[in-house]
Every structure is written in structure tokens, then in C-alpha cells.
């Protein structure tokens, strides 16, 4: 009871009750109580930025997946290069393996990424050599395209490396979206200073992401557009992603040629031996 009185005093400043008639006092108390209850109900229905990012990350990174991906790079000079690779992922993207099928110059090369791409190994079949790459290699372009290894292999970076704030709702690419700003945490290895992310309200699939330069918060470096959402094994999935490099005027598209989530991948696929098989 003492506690209750203390709380009431905090909520309703005591000056209100000094002087005036009883009716006024009752009316003010009533209005305050009603607004308190309505606000609490609204808060209950409002989703937080962290929840949106978490759900979007989970939607984009199902527990397991197996895919064949076609990656097309278009250079600033308009030249086009196409790569096809098999992709496997497990533990919601914590482990991933890419094996190149085409073109001939990279055929059978593979890239293993563990711990959300904190550890990367590359396999070169012509020498049967497996080489571990350091973290700085995460920034390297995958086959000269606009995706870095960090972009492809890090499934939890939005949660681990960035603080997120919901800054509004707006239409993007013809879809009603949550608009969020993600700012790099001070102690993280994030490759960008901040991100603006649009997540479709209906299904929590990201529609677009703007990546701002690591050193300049206002310099737009890349923009990712995700299109053609289809339901695969019950999960809404953008079947095509295009990364535009706004500094170099290049773009790289990735399209799923095959995709399955309902798979049971063995752990030893994500090992040195798995890279070679």
C-alpha cells in the first residue's frame, strides 16, 4: 500500500490536488488514468526495432538451406560475368559453404565460412590446397562483384554488430515497410557505419538495405534490393537480390535457381573434407 501511494504520487503530481473543487480533481484523475491505460495498450501492440530485425534475420536465415545460385556481375564498363555456385548453410547461416560450378576458371573452388564468416577457408582444387583467410579478407569482393564475403556469410551481423532504431513506416518498392536505422556498435567489426533497412510489414522480408561508408556516415556506398518474394517450404523468400555499388557504378545480382529449406545437412559438410567433396 505504501508502495502504491508512492507510485501514485509519482504519476500524478501532488500540486494538482491542491486547491480547486472535487469535480475537477476527479475529472483530471479520470483523464490521466484513461490515457495511461490507452498508452499501455498501444505499447503492447507496437513492435520494437530489435524485434523487427530479429524476425527479418530469422526469415532470411532459416535453420538450414541448400541452393544453386546464379551470380551476375555487371562492371562499370557494362561487362557481364556470370558465376553459378552451390550454397549450403546450417544453424541459420552460422555455417555456410559455397562450391563453384561455373565458369571453368573457378570450377570446384569452394569457400567455407564458419562463425558467421569470422573464419573463412578457401579451397583451390588445382593445388588441392585449403587456405585460411584472415578477417580482413571478409571485405574482399566475391569474384570481383559487389557482395563481400561479409555480406554473404554473416547471418547475424544486423543483431550483433549494429544498434537498431525504428524510424518510421513508408512504402518502398511498392510495399508497406518498417524503416529502420542500424548504427554500428563501437566495439564491433561492422563493415559499414550505418544501414537503412526497409522490412515489409506483411512478412518481415527486407525489401531494401542502404549501406553507408565505414568512415563517412553520409556517404552511400551500396544499395541492396530484394525482389520476387516466393514461399519456399513455408518461408517467404526473395528469389533475387541485386547489390548496387553507388561509388563504383557497378551491380551484382544473385538469383536462386534451386532452393530448399527442408533439408538435413550433416555437420561434416562444413569441414575441410566437405569443401573437397
Amino acid at each position, binding site marked *: 500500500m505504501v508502495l502504491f501511494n508512492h507510485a501514485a504520487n509519482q504519476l500524478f503530481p501532488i500540486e494538482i490536488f491542491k486547491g480547486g473543487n472535487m469535480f475537477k480533481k476527479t475529472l483530471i484523475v479520470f483523464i490521466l488514468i484513461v490515457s495511461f491505460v490507452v498508452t499501455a495498450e498501444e505499447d503492447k501492440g507496437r513492435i520494437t526495432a530489435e524485434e523487427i530485425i530479429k524476425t527479418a534475420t530469422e526469415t532470411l536465415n532459416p535453420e538450414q538451406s541448400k541452393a544453386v545460385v546464379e551470380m551476375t556481375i555487371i562492371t562499370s564498363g557494362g561487362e557481364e560475368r556470370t558465376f553459378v555456385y552451390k550454397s549450403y548453410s546450417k544453424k541459420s547461416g552460422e555455417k555456410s559453404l559455397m562450391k563453384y560450378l561455373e565458369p571453368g*576458371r573457378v570450377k570446384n573452388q569452394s569457400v567455407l565460412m564458419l562463425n558467421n564468416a569470422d573464419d573463412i577457408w578457401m579451397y583451390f582444387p588445382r593445388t588441392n590446397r585449403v587456405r585460411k583467410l584472415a578477417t580482413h579478407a571478409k571485405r574482399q569482393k566475391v569474384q570481383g562483384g559487389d557482395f563481400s564475403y561479409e555480406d554473404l556469410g554473416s547471418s547475424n551481423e544486423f543483431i550483433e554488430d549494429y544498434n537498431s532504431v525504428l524510424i518510421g513506416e513508408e512504402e518502398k518498392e511498392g510495399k508497406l515497410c518498417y524503416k529502420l536505422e542500424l548504427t554500428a556498435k563501437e566495439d564491433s567489426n561492422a563493415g559499414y557505419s550505418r544501414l537503412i533497412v526497409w522490412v515489409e510489414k506483411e512478412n518481415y522480408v527486407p525489401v531494401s538495405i542502404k549501406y553507408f561508408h565505414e568512415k563517412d556516415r553520409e556517404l552511400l556506398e551500396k544499395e541492396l534490393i530484394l525482389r520476387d518474394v516466393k514461399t519456399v517450404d513455408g518461408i517467404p523468400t526473395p528469389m533475387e537480390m541485386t547489390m548496387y555499388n553507388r561509388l563504383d557504378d557497378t551491380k551484382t545480382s544473385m538469383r536462386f535457381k534451386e532452393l530448399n529449406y527442408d533439408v538435413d545437412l550433416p555437420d*561434416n559438410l562444413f*569441414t575441410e*573434407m566437405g569443401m573437397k567433396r
Partner: protein
Amino acid sequence: MRVRTFFLTFVMGGILAISDLTAEELDIFGYFEPQYMLLYREGDSYQLNSNKIRVDLQSYVSNVEFGADLIYNLYYGKRSWNMLDFFPAGISDEIPPEMRSYFRYTFNDTLYLDNVYVRMSNSRIACTFGKQQISPGTGYFSNPVDVFNLKDVLDPTYEQTGHNGARLDVMLSGRTKMMFFYSPIAGAWKGSGKLIRFKAGLGHFDFTLTGYEFRDELTDVYSLLVKNERRRLLGFEFVGELLGLGVWGEGAYNLMEISDDFYEFLVGTDYTFESGFYFLLEYHRNERGKTNYEDYNINDWLRFYLGETKTICRDQMYGMLRYPLTDLMNLQLMTVFSVSDGSAAFVPVIDYNIFQNVDLSIMGNIYTGSEGKVYNSELGNGVIIRGRVYF
């Protein structure tokens, strides 16, 4: 011709031995590589050119993989060379005229199976039999623990030929692995190569221990004999990162049956900047090498050119700078510097992916040392233009 027929029969026999393969199960790919090499030396220019074709065959039937690649090299231009022309004058003068022909070398057209193997594997164990790639070591320019391959420090990533043997790989856990390799190169078990490797991952590092016993060969000009003795190599490798830099290293201690034991090690680091600019630096010490270039003798030079020793000098540094000029073109500068004698070689390289399956590389060789040193300017300066068309 008989050799060629034998090889082709062997390859096809290997394919058919696995099962009744359909066209879909047998993958055929490879490349055609024309190469032009120009050398400017002592006021004259020379050229040695080649056309190489590599055809890879690969088939997977259940847990069995068959792989082979056939290489045909056609040479033209100046095909005959004398190794003595590349020795310092004071050294080559020691060779009596009647022996000079022993140092002649001709690039003959060759057809050979670079690799041919069958691999049977399940989720934890893989057995590989045949001629196969073995590439131990974490170094980029050189590998003290690798006694199978001889890297050209001026072209270190060029593919190496396979090695005959039986290999067993056992995955003990996600990042822990054992490897055994038996190479029956001698007529008996005693002289053949026996390799064991243990690899484990710890944090952001991979560590490997190596033990290898084999017969070591050293040519001796004075006795005109190839000395042969047992060599036991104990090796250690690591690769990982420290303070954001990539770091690696490898060391080998060699226990020799007759001659003096020796050690060799290499340490390296690399980093990629935001702009894509990449640098790599390695330091290499080979106790078999000499600290004073005036002590290099004819045996040292010969063993160096034959690949019996990795370096002629004791300490070397390697460096590489690479910058992506465009998404399809890289500019690179490699350098090899002999700390022991102060000579250096520079290799500027342009790599360009002209079309989807066509690469072009232009490499220069510039030697700066004075006569008698390992990278002396008397070796001449050159350019290699190499195209590669993949199919």
C-alpha cells in the same frame, strides 16, 4: 606415340573401370594456354613460346570420385638452353669444355598425366590412390615443409604436377584432421616417402604438425654423382590472425642421415585495405643457403636450378602489392629480395579477365643484383605473356 597411346588407354581404362558412365556423369573441362616468353640478355633477345592444353576428366559415382588431367605442351622458339649460361662467369669457367654438354637442356614437347586418381570417401574418411596433388604449407612464395613441389618464387601460384602415392585423410572432428601419405617412389618401403600430418583448429588459428621420411637427392658436380640419403623432416605450421593482420608461418627441422641437419622457416603477414589494396610480406630462412654470395659454388647453383634446394642464399624476403584497377583487372608487384647478398628481382604483373572464360596475364622479370649474386642482372630481363581460355 606409344607413350601417348598408353596414357590415353590408361585414362579411358580408369574411367571405364569405375562403372558404366553416362555422358552426364563424366565431366570434361580444362583450358588452353598459349604463352610467349621474351628474354633480353647481354644485348641479345631470345624467345621461348609454348602452347599448353589441359583436359580434366572428373566423375562422381556415389562416394567414388575419379579424376585425371592430361597435359600436352608444345614448345617453339629457342628450345635448347645451357644452364651454364645462367651461372656467374667465374663459376661456369670451372667446368671443363668436355663437360659443358651435361648442362644442356631442351624443352621437348610433352604429353603426360598430371594427375590421375581415384578417391573413395565417406563423411569422415577419404582414401586416394594414384597421382595426386599434395601441397603442405601455409606460405605463399615458398613452403619449407613442402618437399613435394618446387614453387617458382617469381610465379608462385602456378599449378604443380601430382605425386604418386596412397593417401588417407581422417576427419577427427570439425577442425581436427589426420593425413597419411605413402609414396612408393623407391623400390622398397625403406626408401619410399612416408608422410603424416595432424591439423587442428583453435580459435581463429589452424595448426599443423608434419612428419615426413623420404630419400633426399643432392647433385654433386665434382664427383658427377647424385648423393642420396635418408631425410626426416619435422614440421610445424600455423595460420590465423593477429591484431587484424593475417599471419602465418611454417618451420621444418631436417634430420639428415649423412650430411648436416638443417632448419628452414618462413613467416608472413597480409592485409586488405578498404580500397581493395592488398599487401603481403614473407621472410624465409634456409640454413642450407649461404650468407656470403662469394661462397656460392657450382654445386649451389646447380642444386638451386634443379630445385634440390629452395634457396641458394640463407635469408630472403618476399613482398606482394596488389590493387584492383577494375573489377576485372588487377595490378600486382611481386619482389624477391635476398637479405644475404642484397640482390632483388621485381615482377610487375597485370591480370585481366578479358571475357567470361578468358584470362590474360602479363608478367615482367627485372633482376637488379650484381654478378655472382642470386638475382643478378646478368640473368637478363624478360616478359611473359600468358593467355588462358577455359572450357
